[in-house]
């Protein structure tokens, strides 16, 4: 049985009560405990900073050449908090409500409420670190509204909020590196978890420069290793983002929750060439002022948009969802855009015979508030767009198309953010916790920082205080974990019939997942995809070709290992999607959509978190049933 260890009682006092019940580690005992943190994005860096400051010994690892380059750096739009500075009726309760509803009633109430509660403290913390959030002329912090909400609760730093928050966390972490309490290793990739007596006690790490493998032991291990949208090959994530850490954890006994809950973001730059390496997000904040439309008539699709008359434009989100219009949640917007393009009303370059794009038009807002103010708000995003496409969004409407962006699924964690493997914690995008079946804008940064600054430091202390830790440096499991990694690398380096590059397999996997397990899903197609990916897996291990040697900086080898894990994850994503006979949030099963294309949940049978357990080449489903005591599940309706 899965136990989430959720506290009970009034929602408002659950976290406080829980904090009181958690055991503490006395200050003088803290440096006797060593903690390993894998990943130093927002979640990991903020955790390292806080644990170091508390006095623990921390070892951290990231695969980039510096913690400052974690994928969090790319977040554009902003971070939510319930400060209610705009006096528009915001509150902890409202953010809690929006997040539960936005997630289509597939997240835990206690966790989400705690997140909303902690949001304000994050802003205080960031401002104190010198994060230069946008301000008004009065000197007060500025806010804007963001997809899926009707209040202005989003804090931002032009279009570079993630960068500024990460640099804040990185600087706080750097301070602890200087103090000697955090030892950080860059260009280091974790490839296995060391499990002893059912507890996570260490990791095997590959030094990406020398190719050397080393083992590191500790009292517990925390994974803050980000999301897995790159399973689709093309996504808005940085190229290095991968599932390897979470997948190794899964294979060591940590359950993987809701793997099919992946978010496809509506506003990305459409692909322009068939060999493209990644897709770029255009921040959702653009939907505050831009109007989305497509030509009403297919024959207009090739025209210059300026030549398409007002009455021949279909502002389809405004037409379909008058109340929320261009601000409907991401999944709703993405499906609508796909629907339009499937009808043949897309615009832009043809990729594999289809035009994948609709317009995002700023003419009205430029007329209304003037060019200068539009530039102040969106200048750097417009510039980014122009660089990529060679088109000027001030004069020609942008073209956008959905792209994989965020993974709500991830390692199953309880209220303490501990996985089903004792001593293994997961924070940030790597866990499944707070966003249900769909994440609202500006809430991932909030969650990563809440996990790292405020939740994990407390729950980890509790774990350390309640357990004893023998010295395990000589334990045979340490050597076995190392051998497992060596063996795997060997297989990757010496496939029997080496022919194809990691990219070759990754692109194939991406195409299968995008078609079968992307914006719309269907039983037969999912079943077929599972067979296709299984065949791809067999072919991969036969034909993967890695040149160079393993005891060296070898990016081909790095990629091969990550693709191998994505392939296995891909199968689980499809299985999960197949199992969930309903539509909810980002998971749209065509068999369960209303005639107008909206998700039809099945609360009777599927109001649960699907937590998958790995068992010797099979997987077993565990259901964590969700209880809604405070918000009655309703049909999400954005009309």
């Amino acid at each position, binding site marked *: 049985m899965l136990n989430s260890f959720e506290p009970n009682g009034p929602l408002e006092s659950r976290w406080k009560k829980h904090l009181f019940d958690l055991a503490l580690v006395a200050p003088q005992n803290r440096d006797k405990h060593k903690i390993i943190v894998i990943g130093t994005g927002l979640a990991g860096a*903020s955790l390292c*900073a*806080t644990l170091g*400051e508390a006095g623990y010994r921390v070892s951290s690892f990231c695969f*980039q*050449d*510096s913690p*400052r*380059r974690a*994928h969090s*750096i*790319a977040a554009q739009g902003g971070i939510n908090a319930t400060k209610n*500075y705009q006096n528009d009726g915001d509150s902890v309760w409202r953010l809690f409500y929006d997040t539960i509803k936005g997630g289509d009633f597939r997240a835990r109430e206690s966790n989400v409420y705690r997140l909303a509660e902690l949001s304000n*403290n994050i*802003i*205080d*913390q*960031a*401002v*104190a*670190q*010198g994060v*230069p*959030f946008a*301000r008004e002329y009065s*000197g*007060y*912090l500025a806010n804007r509204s963001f997809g899926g909400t009707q209040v202005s609760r989003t804090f931002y730093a032009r279009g*570079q909020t993630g960068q*500024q928050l990460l*640099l804040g966390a990185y*600087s*706080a972490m*750097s*301070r602890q*590196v*200087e103090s000697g309490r955090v030892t950080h290793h*860059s260009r280091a990739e974790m490839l296995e978890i060391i499990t002893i007596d059912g507890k996570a006690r260490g990791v095997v790490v590959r030094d990406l*420069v020398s190719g050397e493998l080393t083992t590191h032991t500790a009292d517990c291990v925390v994974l803050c290793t980000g999301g897995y949208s790159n399973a689709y090959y093309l996504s808005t994530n*940085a*190229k*290095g983002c991968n599932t390897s850490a979470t997948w190794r954890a899964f294979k060591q006994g940590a359950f993987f929750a809701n793997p099919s809950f992946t978010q496809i973001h509506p506003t990305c730059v459409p692909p*322009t*060439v068939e*060999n493209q*390496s990644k897709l*770029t997000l255009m921040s959702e904040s653009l939907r505050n002022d831009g109007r989305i439309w497509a030509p009403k008539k297919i024959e207009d699709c090739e025209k210059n948009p300026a030549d398409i008359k007002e009455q021949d434009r279909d502002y389809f989100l405004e037409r379909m969802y008058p109340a929320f219009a261009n601000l409907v949640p991401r999944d709703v917007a993405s499906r609508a855009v796909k629907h339009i393009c499937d009808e043949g009303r897309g615009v832009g370059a043809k990729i594999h015979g289809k035009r994948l794009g609709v317009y995002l038009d700023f003419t009205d807002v430029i007329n209304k508030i003037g060019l200068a103010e539009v530039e102040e708000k969106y200048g750097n995003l417009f510039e*980014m767009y122009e*660089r*990529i496409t060679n088109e000027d969004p001030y004069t020609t409407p942008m073209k956008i198309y959905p792209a994989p962006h965020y993974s709500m699924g991830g390692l199953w964690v309880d209220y303490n953010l501990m996985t089903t493997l004792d001593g293994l914690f997961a924070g940030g995008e790597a866990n499944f916790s707070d966003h249900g079946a769909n994440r609202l804008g500006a809430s991932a940064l909030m969650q990563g920082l809440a996990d790292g*600054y405020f939740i994990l430091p407390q729950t980890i202390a509790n774990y350390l205080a309640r357990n004893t830790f023998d010295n395990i440096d000589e334990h045979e499991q340490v050597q076995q974990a190392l051998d497992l990694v060596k063996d795997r690398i060997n297989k990757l380096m010496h496939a029997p019939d080496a022919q194809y*590059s990691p*990219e070759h397999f990754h692109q194939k996997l991406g195409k299968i997942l995008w078609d079968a397990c992307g914006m719309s899903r269907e039983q037969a197609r999912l079943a077929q995809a599972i067979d296709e990916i299984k065949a791809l897996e067999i072919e991969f291990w036969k034909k993967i*070709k890695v*040149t*160079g040697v393993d005891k*060296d*900086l*070898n*990016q081909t080898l790095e990629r091969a290992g990550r693709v191998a894990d994505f392939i296995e994850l891909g199968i689980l994503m499809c299985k999960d999607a197949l199992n969930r006979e309903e539509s909810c949030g980002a998971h749209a099963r065509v068999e369960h959509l209303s005639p107008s294309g909206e998700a039809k949940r099945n609360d009777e049978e599927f109001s649960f978190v699907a937590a998958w357990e790995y068992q010797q080449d099979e997987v077993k489903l565990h259901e964590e049933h969700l209880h809604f005591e405070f918000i009655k599940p309703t049909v999400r309706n954005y009309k």
Partner: protein
Amino acid sequence: MIFTLHIWRQKTTDISGDFVTYQVDNIDDDTSFLEMLDQLNEQLITKGEDCIVFDYDCREGICGACSLVINGHPHGEKSATTTCQLYMREYKNQTELWVEPWRASSFPVIKDLTVDRSSFDRIIQSGGYVSVHTGLAPEANNTLVEKHASDEAFNAATCIGCGACVAVCPNASASLFVSAKISHLALLPQGEIENENRSRRMIKKMGDEGFGSCSNHRHCERVCPKGISLQNITRMNRILG
């Protein structure tokens, strides 16, 4: 399009490298510079050769990982642009391109086009922060920040730590990078208190890491992909008195 690429190949830090010439064809206008290198690497895999190593991650100009000197220009000739934001439409068909790593003794080459920039991390560790404890921050709006100062601080804070400023500087000085962090924090009331101490420690660390000092060549501002202004160096010098 077709390009002739002369690419710096170097096996390790200790073994000196050389340019190797490759031909790439079938390159689309909308292909990015790094995608062209991806394509070349795919060819190398087919031929059974070790791939060309270069740093990248975000591929949208924000992580600061990418770092190529193209025809003598860090991040290529286009202003305010990172290597990953270069598209081949900016180059004439059939041109020859010379591709090298950053060159500075404080950024030793690791392999091919990849260098070790951990010296930048150590400079930040020496003082590039506000010494605030987690959890003890006061209500954010209790300290108001004048909008202009906040905007200026933001501009300085957009440095991506790529190191192009060092790569282009005849003295291999890291002054633009260091001054950007010092300015960012100096312009905000939260960071102002530690100004002097912070600046001294960071400057000392810059010297210890082997970076030169600034003698006003001003190349750094020109190549900086984020348009970090030389005024930051002036401000830093003022703080140091």
